[in-house]
């Protein structure tokens, strides 16, 4: 027989399992800073009207709101372990493990301390519920300990209420949980009438005190309603994606972890249905949890904690602790699941060892180099608020508006309108359809933003603002692209540094000084893909291709495809000639990707890119003299630019092996993923083929030169371009070849 596991032993194992879950959720970035308790609001537009918990005002606390992720994980695992211990008395440990790992993958949004207080409130509520269920031990032998503790429940509620208001902005949830407990306590608890009268008076006094304090402290009432006010705040999804409901697929907030959480919640409801009879308390808590998890993605984490709180009756019908089922009764369950957690974590570490070991050395986010800004930072995606609330940034980079929707919601409409105008470079005033005036210039005169943080995935906006606007890029990372205004000399200096860096990445050459610091942060491989897409949006496809990791994951291939399309457009605009090679590479990858399950937005993006190439190249092809190329060749090129590589291959296969068609065959055999080998292969074909016309040879050499830039071989690239110009001085690619040579 195995001795029953001690409670402390069980807690330790669940703590280990939780820690493993938390570390695996953010494996590459355990040195990241993450908010543990609330930050004092320092935004500009409503300064003074926002409630910040007293904890945030304490000087020694304000400087330590953000801990390193590994520190956060150690502490958060304590909370998760505590929750897991409670849950394991009611459900299978596998379910508890799944729940803990799911919880680990949700963003706490700075509410760790709030979550702990919430769980404390849940424990109090459950204790108050439990007191009514235990049989009195024996009549006349004094009150049982549990019943005796009831006299402390009301003071406990008050204490936790005060604690919640002092340490978290989510105290509305805590008060709701305690209020529900008091309500059910009032309704259901046995006890003599004087005691019940005291409880009623105490509960009413508690409510009245809260109401008075709300009235006296500015913003406190609005913050109280925060866990529910998202229902009547409706910013555009692009401005505040996490405020959307789970079913709003366009915001892409739903993840597989949400699916697991929903299954857990469904299980909790089924458990509630099976309880005999179910408790009002459980129904109330589970209702709140379901509403939060489904209705507002922002509250996934807190909703998950609430869902765990409705764990039903602790004791079964016969008053005994319900035994958990176990597949391996001879093993300590807690240690089993801790072992599984540890195994999962180790597996991830081993398979990503290089990235994990160097993670602390790779910068993930670009921090503004400017020591301070003359004006606030304007976020175009309010989910990025936590990034700007680390202590070292908070003082120097106040936000215009942040994610405290309970206070800033009235500004969101205007912010959305101004953001849209800014993205479309509509500075001057113009009339909107409703007769109101648009244009961001007048609003910026009032707000005076000096930094704008654009979501790094908004590639259309990045492109639109990059060229002619007087806002210039001063930093890029996987989450944000920072823009500074040309009226700020420091921003101009930083923008020049950025452009030097990006142009070097595009065409590497000897450079006196290059500084990534404050300009570019690449992050882990999955971050690098996003940065590559930003560079493609900036019309720097070679830089993007060079940054992409050497893998064939779907995200990398999509990024590669978009870069090839951009390269094809560049060649077209400079030479007036279709880049057969890049069109084939883009088309081939698009064909392969379309066979895979892609997000609709990704499919749409690829479709548009293909259509744009077909249209642009088609316009030029249509105007070319028929004497330059044969009808068959033109038709084949049209098939290629339309992405119909199968049709193009068939057309080529039917042709005689004349030089032109041999040219097509070589390019059609191109492997899209290997620039270095491809240039060697093409060069080898050229050498072997002695009677290729000069024009085609020059075109081949041009492609080789561009491929060599792509693979980073500058010397080889120069040789190819020079050879290209030598073979055919009148090649249509000469302008672009000259440009590349001038940059090297």
């Amino acid at each position, binding site marked *: 027989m195995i001795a029953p596991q001690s409670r402390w032993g069980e807690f330790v194992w669940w703590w280990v399992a939780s820690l493993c879950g938390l570390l695996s959720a953010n494996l590459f970035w355990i040195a990241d800073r993450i908010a543990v308790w609330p930050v004092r609001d320092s935004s500009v537009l409503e300064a003074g009207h926002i409630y910040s918990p007293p904890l945030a005002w304490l000087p020694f606390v304000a400087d330590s709101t953000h801990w390193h992720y590994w520190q956060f994980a150690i502490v958060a695992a304590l909370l998760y372990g505590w929750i897991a211990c409670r849950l394991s008395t009611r459900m299978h440990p596998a379910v508890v493990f799944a729940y803990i790992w799911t919880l680990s993958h949700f963003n706490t949004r700075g509410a760790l301390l709030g979550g702990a207080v919430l769980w404390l409130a849940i424990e109090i509520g459950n204790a108050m519920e439990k007191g009514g269920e235990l049989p009195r031990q024996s009549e006349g032998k004094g009150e049982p300990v549990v019943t005796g503790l009831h006299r402390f429940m009301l003071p406990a509620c008050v204490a936790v209420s005060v604690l919640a208001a002092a340490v978290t902005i989510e105290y509305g949830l805590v008060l709701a949980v305690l209020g529900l407990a008091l309500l059910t306590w009032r309704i259901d608890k046995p006890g003599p009438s004087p005691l019940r009268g005291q409880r009623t008076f105490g509960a009413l006094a508690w409510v009245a005190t809260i109401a008075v304090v709300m009235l006296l402290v500015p913003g406190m009432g609005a913050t109280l309603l925060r866990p529910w006010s998202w229902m009547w705040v*409706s910013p555009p*999804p692009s401005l505040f994606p996490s405020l959307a409901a789970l079913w709003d697929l366009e915001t892409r907030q739903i993840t597989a972890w949400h699916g697991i959480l929903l299954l857990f919640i469904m299980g909790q409801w089924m458990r509630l249905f099976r309880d005999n009879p179910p408790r009002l308390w459980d129904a109330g808590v589970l209702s709140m949890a379901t509403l939060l998890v489904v209705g507002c993605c922002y509250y996934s984490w807190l909703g998950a904690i609430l869902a765990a709180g409705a764990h039903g009756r602790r004791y079964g019908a016969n*008053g005994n602790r319900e035994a958990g089922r176990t597949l391996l009764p001879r093993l300590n369950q807690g240690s089993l699941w801790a072992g599984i957690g540890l195994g999962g974590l180790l597996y991830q570490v081993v398979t990503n060892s290089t990235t994990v070991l160097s993670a602390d050395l790779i910068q993930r986010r670009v921090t503004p180099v400017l020591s301070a800004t003359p004006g606030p930072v304007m976020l175009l995606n309010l989910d990025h608020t936590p990034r700007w609330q680390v202590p070292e940034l908070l003082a120097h980079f106040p936000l215009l508006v942040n994610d405290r929707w309970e206070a800033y919601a009235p500004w969101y409409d205007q912010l959305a309108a101004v953001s849209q105008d800014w993205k479309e470079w509509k500075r001057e*005033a113009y*009339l909107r359809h409703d007769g109101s005036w*648009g244009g961001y210039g007048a609003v910026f005169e009032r707000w005076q933003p000096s930094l704008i943080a654009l979501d790094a995935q908004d590639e259309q906006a990045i492109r639109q603002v990059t060229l002619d606007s007087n806002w210039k890029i001063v930093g890029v990372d996987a989450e944000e692209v920072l823009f500074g205004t040309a009226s700020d000399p420091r921003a101009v200096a930083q923008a020049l540094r950025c452009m030097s860096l990006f142009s070097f990445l595009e065409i590497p050459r000897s450079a006196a000084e290059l500084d990534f610091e404050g300009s570019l942060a690449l992050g882990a491989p999955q971050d690098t893909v996003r940065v590559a897409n930003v560079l493609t949006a900036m019309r720097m496809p070679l830089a993007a291709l060079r940054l992409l990791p050497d893998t064939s994951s779907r995200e990398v291939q999509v990024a590669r495809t978009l870069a090839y399309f951009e390269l094809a457009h560049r060649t077209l*605009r400079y030479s007036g000639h279709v880049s057969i090679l890049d069109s084939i590479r883009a088309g081939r990858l698009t064909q392969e990707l379309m066979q895979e399950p892609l997000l609709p937005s990704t499919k749409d993006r690829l479709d548009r890119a293909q259509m744009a190439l077909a249209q642009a190249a088609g*316009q030029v092809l249509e105007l070319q*003299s028929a004497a330059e190329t044969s009808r068959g060749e033109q038709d084949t090129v049209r098939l290629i630019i339309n992405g119909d590589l199968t049709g193009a291959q068939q057309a080529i296969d039917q042709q005689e092996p004349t030089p032109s068609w041999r040219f097509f065959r070589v390019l059609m055999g191109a492997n899209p993923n290997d620039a270095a080998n491809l240039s060697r292969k093409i060069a080898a074909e050229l050498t072997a083929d002695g009677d290729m016309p000069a024009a085609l040879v020059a075109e081949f050499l041009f492609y080789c030169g561009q491929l060599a830039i792509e693979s980073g071989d500058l010397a080889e690239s120069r040789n190819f371009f020079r050879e290209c110009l030598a073979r055919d001085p009148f090649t*249509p690619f000469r302008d672009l070849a000259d440009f590349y040579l001038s940059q090297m």
Partner: protein
Amino acid sequence: MPKRNGRPLMAPLGLLVTLLTLGSYAALRPIPTRVPPDAVQSTVGMVDESTCAECHSEADSFAQTGHARTLRPANDPLSLDLLRQMAAADKPRQAGLDIEFRDDKVLAVHRAGDRERKVELKWCFGSGEHACTWTSTLPDSLGAIDLLEFRYTWFHGEGVFDISPGQPQQDSAGYFGPLGVLFDGPKARRCFSCHTTYLPIRDGVIEEAHVRGGVTCQRCHGPRARHVASEGEFRDPRWKVQDQMDAIHRCAQCHRRAEEQPPESIWPGNPDIVRFQPVGLVQSACFQNSAMTCTTCHDPHRPLADQNSRGRWQCIQCHDPDADHHVTCAAGEMDGCIDCHMPSVRMEAPIEFTDHWIRVVGATERKP
């Protein structure tokens, strides 16, 4: 038996309340704020403008105004006529440019040595009262439309073709360099916005087939479907001009506001702001000391040529020599007010604009 707290119906009731709340939220939640679109990018509430003439005689002459004709397809008769002249003009030909007419397409061709570059001209910007500039369009890799502004512009005042204003004297690099300058998406949109009544744009793509060229009735007066349906009873208060400055701002959407110019550029005699009439006008004492607006002197519903826009009738509304309390010309002139107080200024390009900064023009005006 221990006393139990709970109600048998708690579970189904709780679930029902939750589902009802979520359902109500899904059904009733405020629709996420959609920023009202640019007036030029929406046809909601618009009406066929041929109905305007049924009640408003101004509509009869409006079609002849510069506003109405400020954008047309390149294969429009007036455009074709000008392009034929360009094909024979010296300056473009010396630069290697030619115009070819192929079916219903107009092609701009540049030949230098053995190299030939071609682009289809799609649009003609400008009524021709001042100038006409042609453009082509080209999608970028995101599908958004970029604009190619053709190298040469027709300048009506001097009857010549010359380099388009703002373009460098030397050809730019790239295939399209000798043919013109490429503008990115936002700039393309800005160009079209001021020359159209409806500009359909979706995800940065200008749907050229549905562009309504020209600044016509509803561009200034707003959507009028309800006005027509109510037989003129309904007038949308949102589109009503509020005051003197609002009246100026209506025109200044395209003709530029003073406050949107760099402050250092606002000095009398600066040729760079002359073409932006509202910029100079609001600096004028005439504007500041009266209820003067653009329409005090210009009827936008009639062609400029029909209005005697250079006559003194505008001025004597406030400077009548026969009125004792009016201030009149210190030099004793009774006519030709515009010549001294609103002279025409020639730009670098062969085009002149009337300086709307009404003042006694000093001979020694210079940048402060």
